[in-house]
């Protein structure tokens, strides 16, 4: 295997796929990247036991071939190389020579056949031996900038703890012309609904996909702003996303997503409108005295004001008022300030609406002008 590749292109694709590499190191082979030179491209692949990613970059291929090499090492070397063409060569024993300018590296790789089998990520029609199409490639098309903002507003809520599938996944609800995403960690929930003209689907479909894969998808879209749409197709337990030449595959999470509609409050009768920024600033200040573990602050809705207070047995206390137009009835609720701040950052409007019912029931945060995005948060016990 031998090729020459532009250092910037090479670094871009390596930087994209290396984040998949299994940090927990469950299988040593998976700490490597799989590289394949063919045609006029270099194809890079990485996977862990849940997610796989493939990305390509143009290359002058002298001899086609495959090898694998430590993702971390390759990435850190490429970052330091001068902006010059990179000559890459792997010999029969998978010794990899990498030269750029006056710098030369010799890296111990592993044979490509030691790399675990990749999930089926081929796209395009599937034909039989006679050339007749037996499975037509008909991906769903999702408008990428809309998807990006939807992921950005939901993924952060999903739990990083992978023990409970439903709480560590992003729930997709696909219907013709509309896409909805829902996430919850059991304490809070984000629900977003957006029109999606490009989405054509015969009947409603739901999928529960891993949080980590969705965070990667968000990142891929972020680095490919030129792409208009993401192709999405399901192959058994695998769901594959394709954006330009980047392919991301992940397995469906086992487990049922809870009935989220039941916990979206519908009769919160105490509601106020407030400047998002004013509330965020005030909470950031007040919460400086919050307990490190629970982050609790008290929010009181009083006549014509929101009163934020935080009492810390060891440190002291903080209070701040925000003038609002509110006539009551008054209510006091305690929240994890980090949760509220995360929601306030993911909302976008200047004015938001907060609504409550009781100090122990779910409250609802949303942009005044946007009914499609709802943030639901359970309070803390007083």
């Amino acid at each position, binding site marked *: 295997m031998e090729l020459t590749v532009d250092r910037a292109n090479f670094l871009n694709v390596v930087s994209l796929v290396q984040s998949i590499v299994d940090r927990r190191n469950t299988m040593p082979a998976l700490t490597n990247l799989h590289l394949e030179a063919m045609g006029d491209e270099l194809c890079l692949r990485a996977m862990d036991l849940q997610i796989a990613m493939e990305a390509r970059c143009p290359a002058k291929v002298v001899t086609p071939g495959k090898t694998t090499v430590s993702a971390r090492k390759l990435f850190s070397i490429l970052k330091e190389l001068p902006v010059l063409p990179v000559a890459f060569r792997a010999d029969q024993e998978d010794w990899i020579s990498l030269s750029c300018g006056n710098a030369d590296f010799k890296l111990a790789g592993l044979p490509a056949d030691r790399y675990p089998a990749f999930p089926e990520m081929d796209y395009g029609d599937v034909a039989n031996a006679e050339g007749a199409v037996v499975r037509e490639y008909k991906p769903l098309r999702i408008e990428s900038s809309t998807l990006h903002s939807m992921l950005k507003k939901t993924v952060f809520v999903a739990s*990083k703890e992978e023990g409970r599938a439903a709480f560590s996944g992003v729930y997709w609800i696909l219907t013709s012309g509309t896409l909805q995403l829902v996430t*919850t960690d059991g304490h809070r929930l984000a629900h977003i609904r957006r029109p999606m003209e490009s989405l054509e689907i015969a009947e409603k479909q739901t999928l529960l996909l891993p949080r980590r894969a969705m965070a990667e998808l968000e990142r891929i879209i972020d680095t490919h702003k030129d792409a208009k749409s993401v192709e999405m197709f399901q192959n058994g337990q695998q769901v594959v996303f394709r954006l330009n030449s980047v392919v991301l595959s992940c397995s469906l999470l086992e487990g049922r997503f809870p009935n989220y509609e039941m916990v979206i409050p519908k009769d919160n009768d105490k509601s106020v409108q407030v400047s998002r920024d004013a509330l965020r600033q005030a909470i950031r200040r007040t919460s400086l005295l919050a307990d490190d573990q629970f982050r609790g602050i008290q929010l009181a809705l009083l006549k014509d004001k929101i009163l934020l207070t935080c009492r810390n047995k060891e440190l002291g206390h903080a209070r701040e008022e925000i003038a609002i137009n509110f006539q009551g009835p008054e209510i006091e609720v305690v929240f*994890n300030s980090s949760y509220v701040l995360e929601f306030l950052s993911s909302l976008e409007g200047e004015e938001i609406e907060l609504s409550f019912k009781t100090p122990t029931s779910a409250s609802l945060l949303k942009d005044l002008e946007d009914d499609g995005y709802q943030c639901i948060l359970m309070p803390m016990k007083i």
Partner: protein
Amino acid sequence: MASEQQGFGSERSILHIDMDAFFAAVEQRDRPELRGRPVVVGGRPESRGVVAAASYEARRFGIYSAMPSARAARLCPSVVFLPLRMERYVEISARLRRIFLCYTPLVEPVALDECYLDVTGQVDSLTAAQAVAAEIKGRIRTELNLTASAGIGPSKLIAKIASGMSKPDGLLAVPPKKVQAFLDVLPIRKLWGIGPKTGGNLERLGIKSIAELRQLPLTQLVSRFGKYGYRIHELAHGRDSSPVRPHRERKQISRERTFPTDLLSRELVQLALEPLLRDLEKKLRQRRLQFRTLFIKVRYSDFTTITRSITFQEAVEVGSFLRSQVMKLLDRTEAGTRGIRLLGVGVTELENCRPQLDLPFPAT
């Protein structure tokens, strides 16, 4: 000063009170017809249960705790087997505790029948500490009609060894200046943490007494036992600064059960785990605790015992996922292919549940 000479000076005064054959003694106390007879509390001899406690009359036949009940019956055919009455022992233990608290707030229960008391500052001499211990023993006898053994020393280590040596119904005080002489003549296994494994290792080196252990260079102990070597070295010199902790935090919660017949199939193992899991969940909910580590314990029919555990990044609360995680742990055992006689499940690294409320999802 006389008290200075044989007393504690700046040292601590720790009492270790250990009830004599507690479960069996409670039974004999509650049923006078059993007094003077060999009594065993625990599993039935025809079952695969073990002896939880043996009265001193039974011990004369060579019966001891943790021995299979069947073997106890062979050693002494006239022994009376009684089932455990945990609630009763807990009740008596609470009454014991009330007695101890009359003397010091620093009472650390180790088990239902065993307690450390720190009376430093309450007494100013060894003689005074002995008087307290004698008074406590007297009250246990008159108020509860039971006997206890007491050990007194400048540390928990010494107090505990002393109470063990004064059994039954004894009292032994070790003044700080005599600690080394007291320890030196004892076999190494009297020290905390020196069990069959470490003990065997040391004995193969020809180390039998604590005096011999004390003469081993620290470097040799550390190279052989790692960090634990320091601890052994300290203990052999009678140095133990561990405090008496009145509110001993529970470090783990677990449930286990020995089965009357070996569990041969995976299905049976799962069925058998269910009540243990339910019990564990109930306890965690009651105490509002969450955990970071979940473990299972499996004892195969040949008594080989293994544990498997999983640790989460954040503390988690009980919930349906507990079962799926336990099943995953079970996958890492030979359940279904090897017979299992004992199963246990438990959690450690406990934390108080966050006051954060959960979204009211309907149960599915």
